């Protein structure tokens, strides 16, 4: 459940930026979570209500954008979809796959009043 501390960071960041922008309320928060990040989006969603309770972020909607995993093989130079973290190219079998997308866990934007 490291999602709990990550969600805590989401709430802290949201409040920090809202204050900096002198916002009166936070309407929505958007985060990106990659398929290979080791973070379970459902758990973040679940933790958000608890973490935001009693703060300025309470009641804001949380949008989680799922980023699919992609790798590029340094041997066959092909790109492939990845569901799990691996160095094995699913196309040619070489141990030469570079992860190019899917490890994101990022706060991207928020809507404030």
């Amino acid at each position: 459940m490291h999602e709990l501390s990550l969600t805590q960071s989401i709430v802290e960041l949201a409040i920090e930026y809202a204050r900096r922008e002198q916002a009166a309320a936070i309407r929505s928060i958007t985060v990106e979570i990659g398929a290979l990040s080791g973070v379970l989006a459902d758990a973040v969603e679940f933790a958000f209500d608890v973490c935001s309770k009693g703060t300025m972020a309470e009641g804001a909607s949380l949008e989680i954008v799922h980023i699919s995993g992609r790798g590029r093989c340094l041997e066959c130079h092909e790109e492939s979809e990845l569901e799990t973290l691996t160095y094995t190219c699913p196309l040619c079998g070489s141990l030469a796959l570079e992860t190019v997308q899917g490890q994101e866990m990022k706060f991207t934007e928020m809507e404030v009043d």
Partner: protein
Amino acid sequence: MCIDCGCSTDPGHDHRHAHAHDHEHEEKTSRTIRIEEDLLAKNNRLAANNRARFAAAQLLVLNLVSSPGSGKTSILERTLTDLKDKLDFAVLEGDQQTSNDADRIAATGMPVKQINTGTGCHLDAHMVGHGVENFKLQGIDILMIENVGNLVCPASFDLGEDHKVVVLSVTEGEDKPLKYPQMFQAADLLLINKIDLLPYLRFDLEQCKSFARQVNPLVEIIELSCHSGEGMTAWYDWLTQGVDRKRR
């Protein structure tokens, strides 16, 4: 007051205050703020602070990670006992509860600090930054951080260590690297422990190493048993070389 993290101030307090003016606010419209900040940014900043402090003290710092019961504490006990005339250690022990592990380490005579994470499933850079306040870093060669037994969560949290060392015992099954790839990818060294039990198990050692290399082709692997002592010399050599590199 902590300069690094400002943690004596309550991070969650709500700074609502009375308005000093009585005019009507204009009707507000919502607006979008672009942020693009990593969720681990705060932890990474504190980890960088830790790393700078450790580098100034020329300290080798290892973050030991594994599932519960793989033998992390037993490996530490034996290592500290065998090397205590050659190297000075300090140990941070992370567990949800109890000081059992710290008590075992204290029996070796080395300085140790227990961090109880409560419901937390991992150590973070903030806890480690405060944990090491108990040690005189200048007099230490190796800081061992024994993370909470968990093959998932500790993988994401940089503590400021030089290397993550993942321990996998042969009673756990050889496919753990494939099941928990984040952890095995984050580690620089894999210790395969309890190899004295291999004759009694159906554990395919070569298959296990091959699985580990599928998620991390560069991982170094040492097979050992902290019970029989087999393979411990290779681990001690790895530690000594790490300390030598720090002092250069």
